[in-house]
């Protein structure tokens, strides 16, 4: 019977987290992008649907649902249907290992605030899923049977594979310091602001930040959907909610990348000051709520940064992108691993 309760607990958590992601990460993300871009370009932005245009994303999704779903005659229908499901599915699955707050103790039972935050290969799980995410975009580009889509798909897979390397190597610095692959352990070690990993790993953090922009296909690395050359890139032939799924996945990915950066370098759900200073007890529900809000605030700041960069920095050329990835980021990431290892060896 135990296993059924475990499954039920995981299922309830999954439903709650899924709602949170789709509602906040995706819907609010789209709204924030439109509002912030308008602000940067001195426009007003969406302001008709709901207060401050807050309901605009829901209106957009409703419109996408109502639209006719076209599949090109020459397309490979099976893959054309599967591709958006893979993209959005993978984008959401990453949240299985993300801890949203510290453990809560009710009675003598300890509850984890996440589906499996204690998984001892947590960060590898995230990397593995990111590498699977390439399939959605590649298949979307290929199955559309359209030259622009195919080029977009190829570009994005080449880009994601290239930047995955420097991303993984940048992580090694954090892993060396934490001595664990579990996200809960990595966060647990950064309990006050002067123990946050960004202080020990400034180079690693910058490398990780640049790589995540490439991994999420955001400007300045949004070559897969460069409008002037590729029409719309891999999702040119998609319409209706299938296009909507790609769109939502982009924002879900952005939130994921922000969450991972917060967890690894900015203390995750840990408050900048010890919780005791606020008079909150370890393991209490009130502390968990404060930690959760703190985590969400940090993620929101990073999402804002993603949007800010998109509307201020122009797009790279494709050869510049590959040069940066292989000739600058990768050697720097290796250097970072070496420096961290030497640092830990001296201090021990």
């Amino acid at each position, binding site marked *: 019977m135990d296993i059924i309760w475990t499954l039920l607990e995981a299922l309830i958590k999954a439903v709650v987290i899924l709602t949170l992601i789709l509602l906040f990460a995706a819907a609010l993300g789209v709204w924030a992008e439109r509002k912030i871009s308008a602000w940067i370009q001195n426009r007003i932005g969406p302001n008709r649907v709901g207060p401050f245009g807050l309901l605009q994303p829901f209106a957009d999704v409703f419109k996408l649902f109502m639209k006719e779903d076209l599949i090109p005659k020459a397309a490979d229908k*099976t893959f054309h249907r599967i591709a958006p499901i893979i993209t959005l599915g993978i984008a959401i699955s990453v949240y299985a290992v993300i801890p949203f707050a510290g453990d809560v103790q009710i009675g003598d039972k300890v509850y984890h605030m996440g589906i499996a935050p204690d998984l*001892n290969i947590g960060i*590898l799980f995230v990397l593995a899923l990111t590498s*699977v995410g*390439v399939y959605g975009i590649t298949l979307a580009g*290929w199955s559309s049977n359209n030259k622009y889509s*195919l080029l977009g798909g*190829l570009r994005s*897979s080449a880009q994601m594979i290239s930047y995955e390397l420097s991303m993984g190597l940048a992580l090694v610095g954090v892993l060396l310091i934490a001595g664990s692959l579990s996200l809960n352990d990595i966060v647990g070690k950064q309990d006050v602001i002067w123990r946050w990993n960004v202080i020990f790993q400034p180079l690693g953090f910058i490398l990780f930040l640049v790589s995540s922009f490439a991994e999420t296909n955001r400007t300045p690395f949004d070559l897969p959907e460069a409008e002037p050359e590729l029409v719309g890139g891999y999702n040119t032939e998609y319409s209706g909610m299938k296009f909507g799924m790609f769109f939502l996945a982009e924002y879900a990915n952005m939130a994921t990348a922000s969450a991972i950066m917060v967890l690894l370098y900015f203390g995750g759900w840990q408050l900048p000051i010890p919780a005791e200073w606020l008079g909150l007890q370890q393991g209490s529900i009130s502390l968990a709520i404060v930690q959760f809000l703190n985590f969400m605030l940090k993620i929101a700041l990073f999402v804002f940064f993603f949007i800010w960069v998109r509307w201020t920095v122009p797009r790279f050329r494709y050869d510049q992108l590959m040069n940066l990835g292989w000739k600058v980021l990768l050697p720097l990431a290796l250097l970072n691993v070496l420096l961290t290892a030497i640092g830990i060896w001296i201090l021990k």
Partner: protein
Amino acid sequence: MDIFSIVFYLFAVIIVVSAAIVVMSKNIMYSAFSLLFTFFGVAGIYVLLNADFIAVTQIMIYIGGILILIIFGVMLTSRITGVDIKSGTTGKVQIAFAGVISLVIAITLIFLFANTKWFTSELKPHQSTIEDIGKELLTNYLLAFEVASVLLLIAIIGAAFIARRKS
């Protein structure tokens, strides 16, 4: 049937069915994509056996690396040049020949499976296997580890050399 067996058979069915599609599908893209599920199923079996690190590496290397390259190859050859790569029908002689070889291999494997003394450990599964794997790789199996890395380095240099020669 306990939950362990149910999960095991679930993964086993995924592996066998998708592997059958890899071999039998006439569309090479379907074959390549079906291989994805085979790899996932194998990763699932690894998780079931408490080999978490191997499972994740399986996904990262086979699904995230090797299979992507296979799909790349198929995408670039079958659509851009305008020729659809599909496996054609083969003659009866070839089918008979292949059938005999497969049968012999299958019988050998079943024979081996039935006669091997499988080692079952009495030890409790480890909390985390990564630490042990890391230590073993850099102490007892250091030579094998280094040889493999040098081999891969040679392969990378060779590939870069072949790709650059023309210009």
